[in-house]
C-alpha cells in the first residue's frame, strides 16, 4: 500500500458530480486531513481540475479508487510528497 503526505493531481471529470462532492468524498477518506480542488478548465462535457490532498498518511490507492468511482480520470500526478515530514520543492537555478 503506497502512502503519501501530499498529492497534487490533475483530473478530468464530468460536470456532475460537482467539485464540492469530489472534495468532500476525498476529504472523508481515512488519513486525509484536507482537500483543495481548483477548477482549471471547463469544456462542454468535462472539467479539468487540480486536486491537492494532504494527510498523514494518505492511502494513494484509496484516493484513486474514490476518484474513479466518482467518474474522474487521473491525467497526471503533479506532485507527491512522501516520508516522515513534508518537504517543499527547492528553487534551482533553472527556476
Amino acid at each position, binding site marked *: 500500500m503506497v502512502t503519501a503526505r501530499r498529492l497534487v493531481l490533475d483530473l478530468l471529470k*464530468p460536470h456532475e*458530480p460537482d467539485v464540492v462532492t469530489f472534495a468532500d468524498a476525498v476529504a472523508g477518506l481515512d488519513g486525509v486531513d484536507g482537500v483543495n480542488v481548483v477548477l482549471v478548465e471547463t469544456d*462542454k*462535457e*468535462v472539467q479539468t481540475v487540480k486536486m491537492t490532498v494532504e494527510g498523514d498518511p494518505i492511502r494513494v490507492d484509496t484516493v484513486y479508487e474514490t476518484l474513479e*468511482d466518482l*467518474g474522474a*480520470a487521473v491525467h497526471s500526478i503533479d506532485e507527491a510528497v512522501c516520508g516522515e515530514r513534508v518537504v517543499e520543492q527547492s528553487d534551482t537555478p533553472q527556476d
Partner: protein
Amino acid sequence: MRSHLRRLLRALEHEDVQSISRRYFISNGFDGALTSVGVTVGAYLTGIADGLTVFSIGIGAAIGLGTSGVWSVWEIERAEKRAELARVEDAMLTDLDGTRIQRQQTGARQVNALMSGIGPIIGVILPMIPFLAEGSLLSMRAATMLSVGVAVAILFVFGVYLATISEQRWFVAGARMGLAGLLVAVLNLLLPG
C-alpha cells in the same frame, strides 16, 4: 430494500431529477385526470347502471396508464441517459460503467419512472372514488358530477403546484388546468358517441 430506497431518495435530491420527475408526474397525471373524465361521462351517457362497474373500468384505465407511464419513461430515460453517459465517456476517453455517475443515472431513471406511473394512478383513481358510493349515498348522475369535480380539482391542484414553482398567479394557473377537465366533459356531452 432500504439501501434501494435510500438511493431513490438521494436521486430525488438532485434538481434535474426533481424537474424531470415533476414533468412526467404532472403530464401523466393530467392524462389520467382527463381520461377519468372521459370514462365517467362516457359511462354515464351510455347508461351504465352501477357505480362499481364504472369504478372497475376506471381501475383498468389506471393500470393501463400507470404501466404506460412507468414503462415508456423507463425506456425513454434509459436511452437518454445512455446517450448522455456516452457523450461524457467520449469526452473523457474512459468507461464510466460502474461509477457513481452511472449509479446516479440508474437511480434517477427509477425515480422518473416511478413518478411517471404515480401521476396517472392518482389522476384516475381519485375521481373514481365517488362511484363507490353510488347506490348508497349518491345517484349515478351525482357520482358522475362529483367525479368530474374531483378530476377538475386534481387538475386545479396541478396548476397551483406549477404556479408555485414558476411564480405565476396560482388561481390563474389552477383555473387554466381545471378548465381542461370541464372542456373534456363538455366535449363528451356534445360529440356523438
